[in-house]
């Protein structure tokens, strides 16, 4: 789905944000990109989305990407439905306007995420979690093959984190959507991802299955504090999470 | 009796001594009174139009004029251009374009680079012509005066726009140039003419006073002379009513306002070189105006100076306008009077062609009632 070969990026003559990254993100899977702030996660995401061009290396993205930003930048208080509708922009010509089909696609996307009741509310009046779901719905409405999310659950409280992660998991299950998201919380990766890419900065990275890469050693190297994998039983299943040793 | 023999030569010597003493005494007295006279002589003293006291040791021999109309006033008082050593560039073009350029061709050699844009003086150029006195505008602030006074020049300032101020120019110029009699004669002429016209128009009822509109600009915009302008003054003097009375000073109006005023007579200034009565006649918006229907659009004459602003020739303008506004009311012969006055003011005998040119006969003869100004 996404194939990178010796990918690297830097601004002008500055230091390399990341370099020599080669990986293959599988189709239909959920991949988490892990790393502390400032190691290039968002930059890599922008390369995948085609917003910036890599300085060196080769990047092949097979399919249409749908971008879900962390929050909305626009100063206008659009209705939530109008925000989701804008996801159809890719399919609407320069001078054209959303048709009934576009409206249906937007409605379907919202229904799939169970937020249809939010349609008429101004977007900026929604809770952070609802907003994130609406932005996911927008990306869905564009009928993308690959959902790319920038820190989707990072600024949310537990309940909203759960909502968003569950929605992503369900989407991937039900529709075979490929999902790539960045996060600085390894438990997000453990909850829903199958593969993980750990960015240590410079030319250092690890890529592989979540089990193989999200290890205590890797996490400690990544976050420079001790982190322990934990698991416990809940409702008859094994729940995995991580605990950082903060103090 | 040898004493008598001795007193005869003594008496003669005494007489000689007394005579010498008398001569010496006379000489001393004469010398003293001359000195006294010299010390008591005030030279030239006057107040400029900002109330400043200006003193010159004697009438000026070298004068620079910055206000544009002042050069023409100067020439009117002096009757020649020798003592004018610098003037505004636009004064020169005004002179060379008009009759004064023909009467005084040497005026073209007078330096006119003495002013920058906006009446700011070029002090070094002015110093180079060594003037005794410089005339400058009073209403532009100190920045256009101080650079000259700082350089040691004597500066007298003028205000502009009314008959009183205009007579002030004439009077001051007369004092400065040592020609007070000529100045007085001009002023007396102004006052006499004004009195005659005021008397004539005193009993005229309002409905017999045509509406007169003066355009300061008619091509690039419609700028009219409202209440408080010199044009307003002489429109009243000529027995008319200023159509633009409801605005003050010079204001821009739109075409509809002009139609609403419906002037009977329209005057265009010579200042806007390209304007012609046809510009008003051909404007379809003005088709219904009384002045257009009756072909009473005139361009104001251009004599020693333009006749529309105040000048030494203003009484000619008043007479011209009265004859335009009320044809037949004045029996005076304007052409004859122009000849007489130009002889007095400029020492020049106007030819018929020159009079035609001043009165803009070429442009104005197609308008109503202008044949009264044609040569006999």
């Amino acid at each position: 789905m996404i194939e990178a070969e010796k990918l690297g990026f830097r601004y002008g003559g500055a230091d390399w944000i990341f370099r020599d990254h080669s990986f293959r993100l599988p189709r239909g899977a959920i991949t988490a990109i892990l790393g502390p702030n400032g190691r290039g996660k968002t930059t890599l995401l922008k390369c995948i989305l085609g917003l910036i061009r890599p300085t060196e290396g080769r990047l092949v993205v097979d399919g249409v990407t749908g971008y879900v930003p962390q929050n909305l930048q626009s100063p206008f208080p659009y209705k939530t439905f109008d925000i989701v509708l804008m996801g159809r922009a890719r399919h609407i010509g320069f001078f054209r306007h959303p048709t009934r089909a576009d409206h249906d696609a937007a409605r379907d996307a919202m229904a799939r995420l169970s937020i249809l009741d939010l349609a008429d509310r101004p977007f900026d009046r929604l809770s952070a979690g609802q907003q994130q779901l609406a932005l996911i719905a927008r990306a869905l409405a564009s009928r993308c093959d690959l959902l790319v999310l920038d820190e989707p659950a990072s600024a949310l409280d537990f309940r909203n984190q759960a909502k968003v992660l569950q929605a992503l998991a369900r989407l991937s299950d039900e529709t075979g959507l490929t999902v790539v998201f960045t996060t600085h919380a390894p438990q997000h990766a453990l909850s829903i991802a199958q593969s993980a890419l750990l960015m240590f900065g410079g030319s250092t990275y690890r890529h592989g299955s979540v089990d193989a890469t999200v290890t205590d050693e890797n996490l400690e190297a990544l976050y420079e504090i001790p982190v322990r994998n934990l698991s416990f039983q809940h409702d008859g299943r094994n729940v995995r999470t991580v605990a950082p040793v903060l103090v | 009796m040898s004493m008598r023999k001795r007193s005869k030569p003594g008496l003669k010597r005494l007489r000689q001594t007394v005579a010498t003493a008398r001569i010496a005494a006379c000489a001393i007295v004469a010398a003293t009174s001359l000195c006294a006279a010299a010390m008591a002589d005030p030279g030239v003293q006057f107040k400029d139009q900002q109330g400043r006291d200006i003193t010159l040791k004697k009438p000026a021999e070298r004068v620079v004029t910055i206000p544009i109309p002042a050069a023409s006033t100067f020439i009117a008082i002096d009757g020649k251009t020798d003592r004018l050593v610098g003037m505004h560039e636009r004064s020169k073009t005004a002179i060379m374009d008009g009759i004064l350029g023909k009467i005084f061709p040497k005026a073209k050699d007078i330096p006119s680079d003495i002013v920058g844009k906006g009446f700011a003086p070029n002090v070094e150029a002015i110093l180079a012509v060594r003037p005794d006195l410089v005339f400058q505008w009073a209403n532009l602030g100190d920045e256009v005066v101080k650079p000259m006074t700082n350089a040691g020049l004597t500066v007298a300032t003028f205000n502009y726009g009314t008959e009183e101020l205009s007579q002030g120019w004439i009077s001051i110029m007369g004092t400065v140039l040592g020609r007070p009699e000529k100045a007085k004669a001009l002023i007396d002429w102004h006052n006499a003419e004004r009195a005659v016209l005021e008397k004539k128009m005193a009993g005229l009822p309002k409905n017999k006073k045509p509406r007169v509109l003066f355009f300061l600009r008619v091509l690039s915009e419609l700028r009219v002379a409202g209440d408080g302008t010199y044009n307003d003054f002489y429109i009243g003097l000529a027995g008319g009513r200023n159509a633009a009375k409801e605005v003050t000073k010079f204001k821009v109006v739109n075409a509809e306002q002009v139609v609403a005023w419906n002037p009977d007579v329209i005057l265009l200034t010579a200042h806007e070189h390209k304007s012609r009565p046809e510009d008003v006649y051909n404007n379809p918006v003005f088709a219904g105006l009384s002045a257009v229907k009756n072909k009473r659009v005139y361009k104001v004459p251009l004599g020693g100076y333009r006749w529309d602003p105040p000048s030494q020739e203003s009484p000619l303008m008043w007479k011209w306008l009265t004859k335009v506004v009320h044809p037949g009311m004045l029996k005076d012969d304007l052409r004859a009077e122009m000849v007489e006055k130009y002889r007095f003011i400029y020492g020049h005998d106007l030819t018929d062609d020159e009079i035609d040119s001043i009165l803009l006969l070429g442009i104005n003869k197609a308008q109503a009632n202008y044949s009264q100004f044609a040569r006999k």
Partner: protein
Amino acid sequence: MSAATETPDRIGAGARLPRYALWGGAVAVLAVCAAYSLGVGRYPISFERVYGILVSHLVPIDTFWSVSDQRVVELIRAPRVLLAVLAGTGLAVAGATLQGVFRNPLVGPQIIGVSSGAAFGGALAILLFSGTSAILGLAVAFGLAAIALVYWMSRIAGRNPVLMLVLSGVVVSAFFAALIALIKYVADPDDKLPAIVFWLMGSFATATFEKLALVAPPIVVASLLLFAMRFRINVLSLGDEEAEGLGVRVEASRWFAILCVTVITASVVAAAGIVGWVGLVVPHLARMVVGPDHRLLIPASALVGGVYLLVIDDVARVATASEIPLGVITALIGAPVFAILLRKTQGSGWKHD
């Protein structure tokens, strides 16, 4: 199913009819204002005569008005009213577009240097040539030149970030303002200079049908193009990265919109000099009524802008005998209106924290 999820562009029944009625009503208000404006002016003409004159063009009727009446209505008021409406709608649409594209409420056509460039072009045309086509041609040419300069100045690494665009606009405006001052300096003070100064201050007083014939097509065409782009402007208003992520070519779309804004602004400047504050204030007024969705905002701005500038011009030409420059009035009215708007709505129509 709520009204927001219905397709606003499709003709339907029942719940959609009131919306069309609203738009129709707004257009009717504009038409009524225009018709009324034909009846007001310094020269008194009764309404019967005004409409008699208008009707006489469709149906021959007996003349019961004077020549002056007819000339005033047909040659002074009619082109002036049309120009005011055209300029008002054009500038409002341009302003709404710029505010959406730049995601900034303080943006109007002056910001990106277009007004100054067009003003310089017009002043140059007055100085060197005569006639409205020269003014229009040079105004558009230099409006585009100003925009090209802004584009070149604000380009970083292949993109034009909004902040750089605004800053470059300020610099380019200052540059052309200096050039205009130079023109005023060299212009002949007897005829060219007053013409330039008068024109720069803004006025519809010189409106004629010849002028309208020249400036109406570019204004109408560019406005219609922006109207057709209104959904895309929604997407652009999300921000460059999001819009790109949604599959929109941001640079191309933005520059096309700016091009249309330039044509409109330059055309209005060519016809009437600098008329400010309309593109800034009217979109805010419209946003208060219809909200931020540009599919509604663009046409709403057009209608509000037409009425707004028409009413202001009516006041300008009737209030006093002398003609007050339009730019002065739009600023005197626009600034306090803007202040009141901001206070009343406390910035709603825009998100606030």
